[in-house]
């Protein structure tokens, strides 16, 4: 296991391909775990650290969407690099749509593969920190009272206290107090920080919509 603790998962039904990719990535110092099918892969305990998945999409009984859903359900979030024998356009589009980091056509050059893997791991790292941040914000958000949450929704849209009070039918002073509690509970210094946190929590869109 590398110092970075990154793991590369491979799912390919062809043993030869599995072996070749494993060798190549191990030579680069990665920890590699290979599986012959999605089912085998899902049955495993997964590394909680940074990881990515090299997935051969030309496998019998493989449904990429199913796999992603199951991964999400299992709380596994890892960027996927798609490998395909036939690089036809509809397939690559679908792959990207379903959240692929990259889409590689076999035979794949080692540089391309490593670049894609590195990108995926980076992305995984980012995702990891984002998820951590979101989790923190979530915990903070959970402390808000419904009224505070309501006030926050309005605040992040850039409304003034007076406008909010009017909309909510209360005094400006109350709004000010709620706003101060929100800032406190959300552990932000400025409005800008609050807006960013709201955006990350997805509150902004709901408001927009």
């Amino acid at each position, binding site marked *: 296991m590398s110092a970075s603790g990154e793991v590369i998962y491979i799912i390919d039904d062809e043993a*030869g391909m599995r*072996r070749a990719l494993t060798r190549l990535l191990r030579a680069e110092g990665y920890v590699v775990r290979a599986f012959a099918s999605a089912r085998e892969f899902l049955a495993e305990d997964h590394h909680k650290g940074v990881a990515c998945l090299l997935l051969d999409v030309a496998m019998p009984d493989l449904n990429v969407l199913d796999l992603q859903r199951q991964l999400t359900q299992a709380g596994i979030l890892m960027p996927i690099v798609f490998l395909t024998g*036939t690089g036809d356009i509809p397939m690559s589009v679908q792959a990207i749509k379903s959240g692929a980091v990259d889409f590689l056509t076999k035979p794949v050059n080692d540089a391309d593969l490593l670049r894609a893997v590195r990108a995926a791991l980076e992305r995984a790292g980012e995702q990891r920190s984002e998820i951590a941040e979101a989790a923190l914000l979530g915990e903070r958000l959970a402390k808000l009272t419904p009224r505070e949450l309501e006030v926050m929704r309005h605040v992040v849209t850039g409304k003034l206290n007076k406008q909010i009070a009017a909309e909510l039918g209360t005094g400006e002073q109350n709004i000010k107090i709620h706003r101060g509690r929100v800032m406190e509970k959300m552990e932000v210094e400025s409005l800008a920080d609050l807006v960013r946190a709201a955006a990350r929590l997805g509150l902004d869109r709901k408001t927009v919509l």
Partner: protein
Amino acid sequence: MSWVTIIWSMSAAVSLTLGAIHAVVWLQDRKASANLWFSLLAVSVAVFALLALSMMHALTTTQFGELHRWGHVPLFVSIVALVLFIQDYFRTRRWWLLWTVIGLRVLVIVINFTTGVSFNFGEVTGLTLFHFLGESVSVPVVVATPWARLGESSALLVLVFVLDASIQLWRRGNANERRRAVVVGGSVSLFVSLAILNGLLIHTGFVQLPYFVSLFFVLIVVAMGYELSCDIIHAGWMAEELRENAESMSLAAKAAHFAHWRWDIGKDVIWVSAHRQQLYGIEDQNTIGFQRFLEVIHPDDRDAVRQGVTHCLEGDGDYRAEYRVVLPDGAVRWIGARGEVEFDGHRQPLRMRGVSADITERKHIENEVAEQLRFEILLADLSARFVNVPAEQLDDQIEEAQRHVCECLHVDLASLFQWSVEDPSFTRTHFWRLLKGPPLPMKIDAGDLLPWARQQLQAGQTVVFSSLDELPTEAARDKEHFRYLGIKSGVGIPLSAGGARPMGGLTFNAIREERVWPEAIVKRLRLVAEVFANALARKRSEQALRESQERLSLATDAAGVGLWIMTLSTEQVWVTPNIRELFQFSPEEALTNERFLDVIHPEDRKHVRSGMTDSCVTGVPLNIEYRLALPDGSVRWINSRGRPQRSGSGEPDRLMGVSVDITERKTAESDAARHLSELAHLTRVTTLSELSGSLAHELNQPLAIILSNAQAAQRLLAQSPPDVAEVKEILTDIVSEDRRAGEVIQRLRALLKRGETDLQPLSVNDAIQEVLHLTNADLIGRGVTVTREMAADLPLVKGDRVQFQQVVLNLILNGAEAMVANQRGARRLQITTGHHDDYVRISVRDQGHGLPADVDKLFEPFFTTKPQGLGMGLAICRSIISAHHGTLEATMQPEGGAMFCIEIPQLKTTAT
């Protein structure tokens, strides 16, 4: 008279008498030389005895000496006569001894008259009187000469000669001759010895004795005379016997009809014993001449007899002849004669003696036997000849045979009549006649003119009549017609082959004179008729065969089919004309199997030959297709079908069949095959192009693995220390992946290959596996899973691998296509192989949308459910399977989906 005088005189008289008797014998038979010598001996002995008597009574020495000297003369004659007699009588061949004896004796005589007193005495000095038998006899006192020994030697030589002759006679003689050797030889030897002893005694003066020499000679004469007399007595007996023989012979001759005769050639007088009347028809005159004899002989034989006689007179004198004589009443008799010519000393014929016998009976029998034999030979010859007589020569041969039979049996006319159901009148188809005459009617209205004969012949009865009078009353009309034709007697035999109803009649008629038809002859004529009937029947059937062959030729011509029949034993082949034309044989050429093989394409000869052999051996009908390489350079395809025909013994003896020119069909077939293979290729390429994506994957996969492995290896090798063990594994993987890629390319290439249909033993399971390899990626891409149920013990089929795989590929892709709308997981394709009866069965089942109502439409060209489909796939598939003598069917499955089913005949005898 004293005893001496009596004895010596009597002796002389006896000798003289005997000599006279035998002299007479010799005079009668000059050939009896022994008697002459004996006579001479006896006379000289008589003289010698008288001289000896005189010597005894001699009074003076001179007288005695003179007598003694002259005594040597009769002694000389006696000895010479004696040895000549012995030589003649004993037939000794020791001539030199004889001549030595005579020569010595001549010497003795010469000395006797030239020296001294006599041969023995140089001088007679005196005479002493000696008393002997009551009388005084003179005995000389002599001076012996040195020659005396010569006399004794000559006497000894006589003794030797006589003994030698006796021994010779004893050795070779019969009882009579042995007796003669003992009596004559013994007595002569004894008395000559005594004479020598007597002479020795006297001459040496040992005792005084008178000369007994003459007496001893008298005794010799007596002994010899006795023996000769015995011979005369024997001759008498023999003469008696001869006479008796002659008499009995005369009797026998009378009984046996033979005569003996003698022909005195010098006088030309022929004497013939009794029966001359009977034998030669010569009146009872005493004698006749040779010319008269010749006159009685049959004119045809006269020259032969004359020549025979001349020949025997000039030759060895042995005469044998057989000739005919014509008696005054015109009767002819056969005479057999045998005789011998007697020649004189100068080889001039003196007379001829012999016997003649009447051999008419024997000749008749001989002639009859010879005639029968000739006829038998003729019959054997006929039956042999008619077995193989070609139809076109039959008519000539029959008439030739009729001539032979007529000549052999002295028949004047032979006819062969035939009739048929359509034409019951007699048609004279063959005839022969001895004498020319008015034209014979060729057609006889037998019902009208010969009703009885016709009825008899048609009923299978033989008609025989020696004369017209023998014909029965109901044959009155026939008789009239025979008379009209001048027929005096005849035989009619029905002609019937193999017991069938008579188809005609064979008749033999006598015209010159009536004749008898012995049963033996009629029986043989029936054989002739049978031979003719069989030959005619064969000709008729050959004609019928030829007609049917012609009809067949016509039919086969019209059908464009040639007919042939091959006789297996000779390999000769009969063919219809159109075959000759087709094979470019000349119209008259004799054909053999080899000749056929000559024009067959060299590559096909073995196949044709083995096909024919198989058919003959197994009895399986022949059905072969082969090419002709014709002399004009063209090549034609022929299909020959036939079957062996078995003889009575069950062995195939002929191969018979038809041949058709199938060049056009073959051309069309090969065109069609070419079109099919081209179309198949086209659709194959199209189909494969559908697969190109997945095939690329199939190729890509190993390449990708190889690349990644190689790059991993590069990295591993750059490390320090490099992980060599890992690199080794990598290389193993690379090699195996490379091989895999190669296999894919090979399969592809095979399927893309353009080529002639090539039917080879093929494992259906293997072929399907290969297709599945190729389609693997495509099917995965389509989410189709394949289940296989391959029978493990599947027999091979005869097929073109590429085309077969094309069909399987088509069916698999079609099946996958049909399931495109299904849920993933409900896209299952099942491939099953198995076999039943003699067929291998391959089915491909899908879970797709099923089939249109009109299933057969599927297989029509340009029928397609795919937007960009060519619509040729299944049509081509069906053509391909048909070319494999198989079927391709599509059926709906009860649980939905389609099932395509291929059935191909399995390869015979070989199983996987």
